[in-house]
């Protein structure tokens, strides 16, 4: 009951926000200095192709009509041809999207789990040495500058000890080899994913740990903990089975609140590790003035962020029975 309506309402909100973002982007692209047409159409295209493109995007029409064309194009995914790749932008980005989702989702989930696990222990052993250690460790990791950490990681693990590859998502030789089965390919991807994943986890788990810790400390004051103890349960069960599930809920909220920060980190990580995702594509397209690609990449990232927010909200509503029922 409540859950379905909740999701629908959030979807409506997302559509509205995305609409606003789209419009603002449209306005900005037209307002910025320079020729807006040159932004969408590669000057090095043949005049015929250029004219076809202009027509399909309505670039020769008055502003209002252009806007309508724009809306239609975004809805249908026709966002122009990349200057650099010479391919339709949507095809490029759809190609990249799964890579970003893979890295990003895994990183967030693992960081959250790690933060919850360690935060639970830190709160349980409050004021002891292990608590101080973990709190300071979390604060320290929080302040690490992500690109710098990424470089250090590469330097140490890839260059010095050589355990992991320096950049990229796949080793071409593995994927070209016809005899390589899916397991080998998966392992290869995981091998490449290890360093970017570690970088993201190290910079993110700290805040989740601190949230979990303070949430646990609050939870431990609740009456049902006394009930659990009165029932004769041992301390570990009380901590893991009674306190932690309640304390973990604010961590989910915290994940949602820091999604913007996480996406920033994701884009930086992809860039340093040359992980072929949409974040890297955005950075790349901006530095090469590939406007169609940049615009589309940004819109896609906006969608990803909004959907991620929705997922987190739904997850919270699902996990907390007080909301679900």
């Amino acid at each position, binding site marked *: 009951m409540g859950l379905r309506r909740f999701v629908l309402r959030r979807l409506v909100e997302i559509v509205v926000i995305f609409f606003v973002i789209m419009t603002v982007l449209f306005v900005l692209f037209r307002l910025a200095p320079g020729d807006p047409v040159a932004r969408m159409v590669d000057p090095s295209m043949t005049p015929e192709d250029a004219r076809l493109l202009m027509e399909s995007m309505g670039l020769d029409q008055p502003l209002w009509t252009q806007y309508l064309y724009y809306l239609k194009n975004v809805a249908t995914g026709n966002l122009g041809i990349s200057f650099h790749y010479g391919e339709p932008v949507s095809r490029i980005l759809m190609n990249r999207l799964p890579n970003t989702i893979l890295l990003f989702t895994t990183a967030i989930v693992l960081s959250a789990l790690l933060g919850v696990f360690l935060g639970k222990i830190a709160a349980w052993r409050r004021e002891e040495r292990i608590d101080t250690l973990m709190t300071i460790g979390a604060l320290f990791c929080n302040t690490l500058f992500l690109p710098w950490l990424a470089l250090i990681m590469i330097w140490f693990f890839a260059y010095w000890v050589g355990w992991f590859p320096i950049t990229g998502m796949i080793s071409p030789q593995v994927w070209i080899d016809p005899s390589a089965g899916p397991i080998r390919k998966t392992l290869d991807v995981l091998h490449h994913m290890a360093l970017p994943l570690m970088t993201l986890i190290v910079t993110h788990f700290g805040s989740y740990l601190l949230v979990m810790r303070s949430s646990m400390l609050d939870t431990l004051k*609740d*009456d*049902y903990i*006394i*009930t*659990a*103890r*009165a*029932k*004769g*349960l*041992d301390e570990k069960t009380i901590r893991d089975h*009674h306190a932690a*599930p*309640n304390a973990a809920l604010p961590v989910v909220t915290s994940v949602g609140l820091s999604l913007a920060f996480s996406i920033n980190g994701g884009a930086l990580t992809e860039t340093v590790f040359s992980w072929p995702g949409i974040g890297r594509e955005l950075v790349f397209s901006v530095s090469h003035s590939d406007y169609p690609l940049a615009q589309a990449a940004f819109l896609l990232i906006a969608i990803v962020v909004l959907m991620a927010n929705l997922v987190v909200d739904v997850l919270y509503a699902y*996990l*907390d*029975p*007080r909301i679900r*029922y």
Partner: protein
Amino acid sequence: MTPTLLEVDNLSIGYRTAGVVNLAVEGVSFRVERGGSLGLVGESGCGKTTIGMALMGLLGSNAAILSGRILFEGQDLLTAGEARIRQIRWRRISMIFQSAMNALNPVHRVQDQIAEAIITHEPHLSRQALAARTRALFDLVKIPANRLQNYPHQFSGGMRQRVIIAMALACNPSLIIADEPTTALDVIVQDQILSAIAAVQKEMNIGMIFISHDIAVVADVCTHIGVMHAGRLVEYGSRQEVLECPGHPYTRMLLASLLTLSDQAADLSGVVCAWGDNGPAAKMGCPISAVCADATAACRHEPAGWVDLSATHRVRCLNVGRGG
């Protein structure tokens, strides 16, 4: 002869705050028989909840047992090890908590919470047996079985309290400590809950300690009444004795504070007690000397010892037994 179910002997408990130990309970002694029920009455802060917690071994880390023994079925709980205490908890002594809102874990279904209590002490039960037990418990407290899968927040206050009662009965304990079980409820529901508790207790012959600040509630349900004030037990006797013939001025004040139907305080001045009139009480031992109308100088300076009004009724007051 079977030993008394519970015997508390000269129990004193203090709380450590900022280097100082504050006495919360001082020299309290009482006993509870199987099937009997003791009502501990007093205002908030008088130490009655502390006693309840001490019986379950749930005192906070800043609490210290300064003296005394708690003999449960012959064994001193204060010297028993942590493992033994955990075994006894819920299996032999269980608790009905006050604020049922928070006493149940909001993210677990009620059936699972009751089942958890059972399975901790009887780990070899099969799932069907467990389910049957929980269903039977719900029947006992008259909650429909289709509510078993609900979460605590889906219940009303009264229903939640019934769930708590069902959970307290889950392992067939010998003693139940009910800590202000009806304080958070309205009077009608309160009445229902009290009847439910009384019925269950009689049927299963469970000993009970009923902690409340409301002497009217306790008067309804308990066979014995103990009145506490500032950490001390000032009067203790059977229900009839304490209610009809309150010896201690504080008890009198508690009873007098009950409102009669005419919305005026009950007038107890004319109560004639075979054991004498309302005597004054001593200070340094009698904390009510400041408000007691008949306090003498002796009451203010000398500690009051126990005076036995009958074999089962005793009062802590210097001026009792005088005259009459």
